[in-house]
């Protein structure tokens, strides 16, 4: 029983990371109907941005400071928000009027570009993320969790709650929902569609960066290709939750994290990555719209 609880606790912390990445997928898809395959690589850039910021500010090591850790998190989110905006402006905007396939292939191109640029700039060998917060293990009735895992869950929850408040309560959020509902109609109502799309990319990329920093905190090994697998899994999480749905992305991410831990814990580590694709196939067979997705007939 305790073993199961331990696996669940680890799975939830890990799943929060997937949830943060999945949010970016789902937001961009909701607005542009584009699967942004470069999203996982933004997460990688987020981790590296934090790594270099930490080196620049001499964070971690002997005197870890939570305030500095927060500053590094925000700095990395800002850098990735700018990167996301640039990516949209230079890569996706020119092909927005073309077919969806063109945009999809562009996304794969951007993804490969970021990965190889990462290898060029950061080097192919793994880097070790500094200890921004001193690690401590806490026993909750025999279940061991670290303060890092707790930080991951708390920061993720805070970000997710503020995101849904933003979407539901602000004018910009309302505009985002309008663009997602019908881009042309929104444009006719005077909503600046381009600006809304830019904001969506900025927020989605900032969330991916946050995921990258949090992963660096708990699993301190970062490398330029680290975004591929989490990117794919977060994409499956978004599909599982219903792509385009914000609460769906969160639930999908957590389910992915927990199922991965249960598979490794009770079956075999060989199936760790396979489970994501099994889930994807099952969702597509049984409920293609996902858990929280709306089934809308495509107009032909």
């Amino acid at each position, binding site marked *: 029983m*305790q*073993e199961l609880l*331990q*696996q669940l606790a*680890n*799975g939830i912390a*890990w799943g929060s990371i997937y949830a943060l990445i999945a949010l970016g997928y789902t937001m961009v898809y909701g607005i542009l109907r584009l699967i942004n395959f470069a999203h996982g690589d933004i997460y990688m850039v987020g981790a590296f941005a934090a790594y270099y910021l930490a080196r620049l500010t001499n964070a971690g090591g002997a005197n870890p400071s939570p305030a500095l850790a927060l500053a590094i998190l925000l700095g990395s989110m800002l850098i990735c928000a700018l990167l996301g905006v640039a990516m949209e402006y230079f890569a996706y905007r020119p092909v927005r009027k073309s077919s969806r396939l063109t945009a999809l292939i562009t996304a794969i191109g951007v993804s490969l570009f970021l990965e190889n640029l990462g290898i060029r700039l950061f*080097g*192919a*060998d*793994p880097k*070790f993320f500094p200890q921004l917060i001193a*690690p401590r*293990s806490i*026993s909750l009735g025999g279940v*061991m969790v*670290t303060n890092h895992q707790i930080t991951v869950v708390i920061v993720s929850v805070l970000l997710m709650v503020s995101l849904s408040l933003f979407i539901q309560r602000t004018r910009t959020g309302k505009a985002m929902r309008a663009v997602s509902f019908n881009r042309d109609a929104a444009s006719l109502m005077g909503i600046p569609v381009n600006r809304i799309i830019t904001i969506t990319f900025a927020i989605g990329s900032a969330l991916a960066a946050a995921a990258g920093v949090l*992963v660096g905190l708990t*699993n*301190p*090994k970062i*490398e330029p290709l*680290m975004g591929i697998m989490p990117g794919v899994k977060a994409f499956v999480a978004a599909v599982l939750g219903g792509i385009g749905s914000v609460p769906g992305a969160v639930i999908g991410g957590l389910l992915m994290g927990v199922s*991965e*831990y249960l598979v*490794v*814990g009770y079956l*075999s*580590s*060989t199936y*760790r990555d396979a489970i994501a694709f099994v889930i994807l196939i099952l969702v597509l067979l049984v409920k293609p719209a996902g858990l929280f997705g709306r089934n809308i007939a495509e107009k032909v």
Partner: protein
Amino acid sequence: MIRRNGTAYLAVLLGFALAAVAGCAKQSNEIPVGVYGSLTGTTATFGISSKQGIELFIEGVNQAGGVAGTKVRLIIEDDQSKPEEAATAVQKLIDQDGVVAVLGEVASSRSMAAAPICQQAGVPMITPSSTNPKVTELGDYISRVCYIDPFQGMVIAKFARQTLGLAKAAVLRDNKNDYSVGLANYFTESFHAMGGTVVVDEAYSEGDQDFKAQLTVIKAKRPDFIMVPGYYTEVALIARQARELGITVPLLGGDGWVSDRLLDIAQDALNGSYFVSHYWEKDPNPAIQKFVADYRARYNSTPDALAALAYDAAGVLVHALEALNEEDAAAFKTLIGPRGDKQTAARAKLRALIAGTKDYPGVTGRITLDAKRNAVKTATFLGIKDRQYEFVAVVEP
């Protein structure tokens, strides 16, 4: 516009031609030796240490006038810690650079990817530190200067069972890695034979970041120690995550732990753990101390066991080249001369001389190759205490 392009084109062509001429001119009065290793990627320190060990030895040889008056030229290729890149690198060394012999790799999976290419081309390959027995079974052109995993696994089992008096082992192996799977199996076999039991056998894949699921299963089985026959990056992360889950038992492992990054990553998590290595840098033996001092002077760092083995691998190769020149100067001339059919026979002679290495005085001990071209050598047990390595014991074969 067209004219400018034309001129640029000509300049490029001329450049290529000059480079080609320079390349040819260089080859005729040097001995080209190929080196491939993981200079980048998950096991970057393996490749860097090996490269530095080889370079140190060859620089010494060249300063003393080379082999029979001919300098050795190293051509070094990076395989990015990937087996498929190792195969490509060795193919390039043989086809394009025309090397007389190849030195590398550390990881058995990568040596096994490159070995068939060397065997096919009839180019002798010496691996400094691949310990999986299958490596030299791939062909008679493949040799090594280190011990093999059945011995290493037995040594770890014996140390755990008899020296530490532990009975219940957990194994956490890297399923994608020939070295790790082999060492885990040999350990399990020996540990069972000595009356111990393996209570749980879990696996991960090289490159994984998170091992908590496996460690949670291991924790529930309450082993006396965890055998982790992996490479340093994963070992250090496993150690950290084990401590985070409240697992306090020692970790044991093999020579895949050897890296100056191990304790940087693991911090305090490996205190109280033990592993097998190939030599001990503070050994008072003057030959070892001279090597350590030379290495420090050249690279400003302490040579690890992989640097020492690479130094010895280069030594065995140079020794064989010298012997070839003494026994059959004509064959030596053919070997290092322009490429031709006769080189095959000369390389076969070089191969036989490498395979016949006897009592070569290396820094990792006396090297004698057995019938399967494996070195029979002692293993050195090291412990970790307060983030420092300490010598524990030497085990005779």
